[in-house]
């Protein structure tokens, strides 16, 4: 039962990440491979604040969101100068730069040693130390972010995003300053990812740079491509699949120390297979 709750918490966190990345990749058509950076900024914000100051979890989430939004604003401005492949490449670059920050700014982040001892959230005296309560918290956040995303996607703003994905130059001629739209959704999405990061930090109670590499960004990308780009329910499905499948391997008898690598092999191969045989993913309508 505890194990199931653990998986469900991981699922909520990754589904949240997937929903947020989908706004950029699935709906706006920007191949961003830097999402782990914002995930990490949220995680580190919470980690640092909870371990070195008296600031509580929920306030740290807000600060994490702000930090991620500022970073994504700056990164988004630079990225807006690029198209397609160069966009993806440059985004990889930014993920690497931020990862280097986590790794090397040791006075702040303790570098490769990571930050242990992060406490669980507390709200009006209620302690989220039991995993079940934490699960409920993360599910609530997932649902919140899911419905915020739905609102965005179904609004006129969302329609413009889809038009940008379809033909950016054409929609510009009709009076839309697409750079503002792309930047806005990028920043909103980064803020959501930061929330997932804060949850992660508090749940695992330890963060270190290795959770926020380029491969994590690729993993989140795999989730949304598997589920089906620009399909909200698809993200949920994709997250479910990619969280559960590696766990299923454990039961088949793979030793736990190569579990992380096996997960990587799986989602790497799934990406390749999807590109070859089903680029629209499980539920998607939009093909890359």
């Amino acid at each position, binding site marked *: 039962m505890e194990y199931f709750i653990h998986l469900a918490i991981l699922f909520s966190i990754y589904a949240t990440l997937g929903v947020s990345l989908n706004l950029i990749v699935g709906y706006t058509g920007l191949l961003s491979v830097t999402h782990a950076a914002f995930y990490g900024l949220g995680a580190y914000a919470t980690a640092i604040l909870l371990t070195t100051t008296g600031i509580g979890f929920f306030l740290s989430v807000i600060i994490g969101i702000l930090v991620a939004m500022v970073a994504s604003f700056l990164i988004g401005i630079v990225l807006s100068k690029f198209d*397609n492949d160069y966009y993806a*490449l440059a985004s990889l670059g930014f993920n690497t730069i931020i990862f280097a920050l986590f790794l*090397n700014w040791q006075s702040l982040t303790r570098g490769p040693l990571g930050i242990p001892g992060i406490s669980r959230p507390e709200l009006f005296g209620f302690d989220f130390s039991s995993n079940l309560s934490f699960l409920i918290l993360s599910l609530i956040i997932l649902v919140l972010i899911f419905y915020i995303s739905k609102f965005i996607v179904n609004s006129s703003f969302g329609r413009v995003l889809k038009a940008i994905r379809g033909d950016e130059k054409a929609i510009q001629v009709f009076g839309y300053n697409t750079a503002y739209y792309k930047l806005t959704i990028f920043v909103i999405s980064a803020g959501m990812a930061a929330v997932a990061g804060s949850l992660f930090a508090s749940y695992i109670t330890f963060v270190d740079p290795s959770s926020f590499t380029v491969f994590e960004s*690729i993993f989140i990308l795999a989730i949304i*491509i598997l589920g089906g780009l620009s399909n909200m329910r698809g993200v949920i499905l994709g997250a479910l699949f990619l969280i559960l499948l590696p766990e299923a391997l454990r039961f088949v008898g793979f030793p736990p120390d190569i579990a992380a*690598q096996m997960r990587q092999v799986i989602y790497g*191969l799934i990406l*390749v297979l999807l590109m070859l045989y089903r680029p629209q993913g499980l539920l998607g309508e939009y093909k*890359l």
Partner: protein
Amino acid sequence: MDIIPQLVLNSIIAGSIYALIALGFNLIYGATKFFNLSHGVMAAIGGYSVFYFAKTLGWNLPLSIVIGVLLAGLIGYALDKLVYLPLRKRKASNMVLLVASLGLFTAIQAIIAILFTSQFQTLSQNVSGQRIYEIFGGVITQTQLIILISAIAITIGLILLLKYTMFGKAIKAVSDDEEVAKIVGINTNRIIGYVFFIGSAIAGLGGVLVGFDTGIEPTMGFALLLKGVIAAIIGGVGSIYGALIGAFLLGFVENFGIWHISGEWKDAIAFILLILFLIFRPRGIINK
């Protein structure tokens, strides 16, 4: 030991390694026009093959090196035939190819980690007993000298190949305009396959040499890939001379860049250089 000559030598060595990766990358980009992000892992394949054959199985070292390089080439060739070619036939967009290459990279790197553990290993037999040469006040090991010579030799070899052989001219034709090359009767897919072989083999050699110089670990592919791509882009994507110029420029900027800052920021500096180039001179130094 004066610091400047040493920095210059370090820059040249770094540049040579990056050149080996960038050459293959640019060769492949020239022929296929997409960013093959699985290129870096060919270096890891080269390094680890030699590790396996020479150290684990105890085979003759030169033979192991030859096999390692050929194996890297073969796997690169295989990836083209199994993944990239079918996608190209389907007129898949560059983004699809890029995502597929990300998936391949992710999976292969993890497979290497599973087979050989994530530990850092070294290829050289006796770490301390290497011959050292003094050049203009700086120090360079025998391996590093070999790296430099290899980079130059291979570049010259490639230039000769491309200029003076029918095969090379066919490659150039495919790089200039694939459709026209087809019309003229060139079997473009076969040429591209060979290009993948050659490019990946060169990267494999790079990995082997890095293995002797510092060592191998499963994640080496990514670091080398990034540097190679940065070098390739700032030098000019698709250009052989560009790969060389970009690689040495990167080597210099990195090594002189960290003169007064800690060495861990090398990657970040490399990326900032890339972003600057992408913004101000996206076609690279050699404008194509």
